């Protein structure tokens, strides 16, 4: 990249709490944030635990007009959207860019060019909330069998008129764009678990080609919903160790049984280094390179040899100009699903070559569960905090590390962080892979 791109703001809502520090602290202390599902009654499902985001203030730090907008429109925002716009707001506020005076008619961020402020979101399919359809379905049945004729005549008129807007996967970008007057390039990437890091990849490309001066990269998803849990159960992706919530998600552990579903959103604010330096911004780190790939092994599996992960990692390292032996840590996806974990470690082993036995590999899913599109960005945000310890924290619940992993999994206690170069990876089942190499700025 010709333009050096740095991270100047971070926002994170994870099951561990509000902010990168909350996740960093939970990871440092090995404290699981997984518990019984409370967002709905999970009794009918084989998997009944999740990483849920604790209550958060959706308008914290916002201008009054923004706060009004968020509150007024909450009813047309699915949980995924609410989480994402809150994480985005936290990242933007974290940059220290001054807010304009709304009463004086100032723009929301008067020191930047709003036409050159863009946003890229990693998002997903947003399933309907069941209650939204309850009354219309009853009306359509009219005492008998459900029929499409009955739905057309009696069901549709009972629906919330803005129902569709609540669930469109591009509404995170729509609302965040309105709230922050971001008129630059905007995209909504639907790449499942890899969505967050792919959003980072695209945001950096847009900055590099000069189409924007400030970019937000955000990934957010809520998998703690009846429809998503249903799918995960049908597809055998989730653990059923409901009675041992804290130890249920076991990345790279011999006894791993699958994901714990989770929710969360992570956002990074990006700008060129010269602009950040000129305004005296706090620089958390620099994005050195990103890489994207895909599996070709099948739409419901991952490649056993890890070639799709290796491809993304190799591309990111090459773009960064970083040799694997210069990496201080790898933030693996590690969602604790056998096929996904094994593909990832095989890919890392292959891409890192001889360095694979040295570079510490850690993962945070043991703490949070699988936050989907928030993955990767959440790990980076937490690591930018953890790097100050000079240590790479261990993988929670990885008690008996997969002996065939072929990489240096951090278990038991932390390992030293020998370099400021951090690699983050994510891989979606049946789909996209992504990786990013960043340099942590410990002199901030």
């Amino acid at each position, binding site marked *: 990249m010709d333009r050096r791109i740095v991270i100047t703001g971070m926002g994170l809502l994870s099951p561990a709490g509000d902010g990168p520090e909350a996740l960093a602290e939970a990871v440092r202390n090995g404290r699981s944030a997984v518990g019984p599902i409370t967002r709905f009654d999970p009794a009918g499902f084989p998997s009944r635990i999740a990483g849920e985001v604790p209550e958060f203030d959706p308008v914290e730090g916002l201008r009054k007009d923004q706060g009004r907008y968020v509150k007024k429109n909450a009813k047309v925002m699915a949980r995924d959207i609410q989480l994402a716009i809150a994480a985005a707001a936290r990242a933007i506020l974290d940059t220290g860019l001054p807010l304009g005076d709304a009463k004086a008619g100032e723009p929301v961020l008067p020191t930047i060019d709003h036409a050159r402020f*863009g946003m890229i979101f990693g998002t997903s*399919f947003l399933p309907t909330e069941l209650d939204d*359809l309850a009354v219309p379905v009853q009306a359509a049945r009219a005492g008998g069998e459900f029929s499409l004729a009955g739905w057309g005549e009696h069901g549709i008129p009972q629906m919330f008129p803005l129902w569709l807007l609540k669930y469109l996967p591009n509404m995170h970008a729509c609302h965040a764009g309105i709230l922050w*007057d971001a008129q630059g390039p905007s995209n909504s990437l639907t*790449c499942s678990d890899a969505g967050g890091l792919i959003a980072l990849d695209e945001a950096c490309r847009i900055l*590099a080609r000069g189409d924007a001066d400030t970019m937000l990269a955000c990934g957010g998803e809520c998998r703690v919903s009846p429809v998503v849990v249903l799918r995960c159960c049908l597809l055998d992706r989730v653990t059923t160790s409901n009675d041992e919530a804290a130890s249920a998600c076991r990345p790279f552990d011999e006894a791993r049984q699958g994901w714990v579903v989770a929710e969360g959103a992570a956002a990074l604010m990006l700008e060129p280094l010269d602009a950040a330096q000129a305004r005296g911004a706090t620089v958390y780190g620099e994005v050195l390179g990103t890489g*994207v790939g895909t599996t*070709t092994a*099948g739409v419901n599996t991952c490649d056993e040899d890890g070639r799709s992960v290796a491809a993304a990692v190799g591309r990111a390292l090459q773009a960064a100009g970083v040799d694997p032996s210069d990496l201080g840590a790898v933030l693996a996806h590690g969602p604790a699903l056998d096929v996904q974990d094994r593909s990832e470690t095989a890919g890392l082993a292959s891409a890192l070559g001889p360095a694979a036995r040295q570079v510490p590999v850690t993962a945070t899913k043991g703490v949070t569960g699988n936050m989907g599109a928030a993955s990767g960005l959440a790990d980076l945000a937490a690591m930018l905090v953890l790097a100050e310890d000079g240590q790479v924290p261990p993988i929670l619940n990885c008690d008996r590390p997969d002996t065939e992993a072929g990489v240096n999994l951090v278990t038991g206690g932390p390992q030293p962080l020998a370099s400021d170069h951090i690699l983050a990876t994510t891989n979606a089942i049946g789909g996209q892979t992504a990786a990013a190499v960043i340099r942590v700025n410990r002199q901030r």
Partner: protein
Amino acid sequence: MNPLGPTVEESWQNLLAGKSGIRPIFIFEASTFPTTFAAQVPDFDLSPYVRDAAAFEQAGRNVRFAMAAARMAIEDAGFAAHTGPYGGVLPRMAGGFDPARFGIYLGSGEGIVDFITLVTAIANGTRADNTVSTVGFAETALRQCNAMRELEQEPNMPANHLACEYGLEGPAYSCLTACAASTQAIGEAADLIRLGRADLMLAGGTHSMIHPLGVTGFNLLTAISTEPKAEPWRASRPFDRGRAGFVLGEGSTMLVLEELEHARARGAKIWGEIAGYGSSADAYRMTDIHPEGRGPAASMQMALEKAGLRPEEIDYISAHGTGTTENDKVETLAVKLVFGEYACKVPISSVKSQLGHLIAAAGATELMTCILAIRDQIVPATMNLDDPDPLCDLDYVPNTPRKTPVEVCMSNSFGFGGQNDSLVVRRFVP
């Protein structure tokens, strides 16, 4: 693969012949819905387009369209059809290249919700107070839902299927910026090639929202036209005074984008050149477009600048032209803002008058018509433009295609929710 035909040539000839793809909905029983018509792709056999059609049993229409369109695009690009077993495709393709440098970028809609099972499970879980017991829901849904059919609803499934079908190991992306998605996909795919991240990109869009919840959602927003039920081909009326919303379409268009030297080296036929791409956001309101067309103007402006062209060098604009009151009025303003005095001289048309609105697949399909317009020196018409809206006072090529010199075209897509994308495509001049 679109409502006007299962091939590029057939749909193009039908478009120029003024035919409409809009018919009463036959995909599902829609007779009591506020909207009873759409532009649908006739049923087709997937087996000529894929190695194993049985593997697509639970796939949605979006995936089926994508597989068919991609197969046609890949063959048209001069790559041999697959003959070998799973995973053995690309190395045998003519021209020899690195599968790791063949990527995918789709503007891709979600799959089709299993509506009847969903509502059955909801009905079985509904309590006296009209809330849904998830326990009752789960009991029915776990028993009746098909796991693969659920998986196929994920919006990245078309891209995933294509990567697996053709062994494409390059960078893969899937985006869903509503109606702008495939224009954005093509623009970003071109950027990846320019950056050297790939030599080839399969780029385009696929979507069908012609299913009970899709039609319900748009009817609730009063975004789609409901009349005239007896003559549905007259319902999509971009820029006409009597316009009353868009008509849902479905389908897929796929393009193979290739780095020029790579294409030259293998002697590929070149259809055209992606000259410029612009992306912006309205950042205005959730349901309304900025009244002065700020966002659309910004994406058009950026695409022109990237192409290094003056407005007068654009010979044809493929409009977003949905046929909603708001869009067509604001789009007219935005074109005037960017093109100045030339705005009233450049031919502009909306093929949505015949094809309906393919949502995530609309942009790629419209870019294809631009490329064909350059080849045949003719621009398609805006049909049903009988009574032009005085607020839409540009040259919208009413009702008859026009023979005219066409070297450079702009294709515009403005997404619901405010994401705007513009592409400039030109004849390739060696």
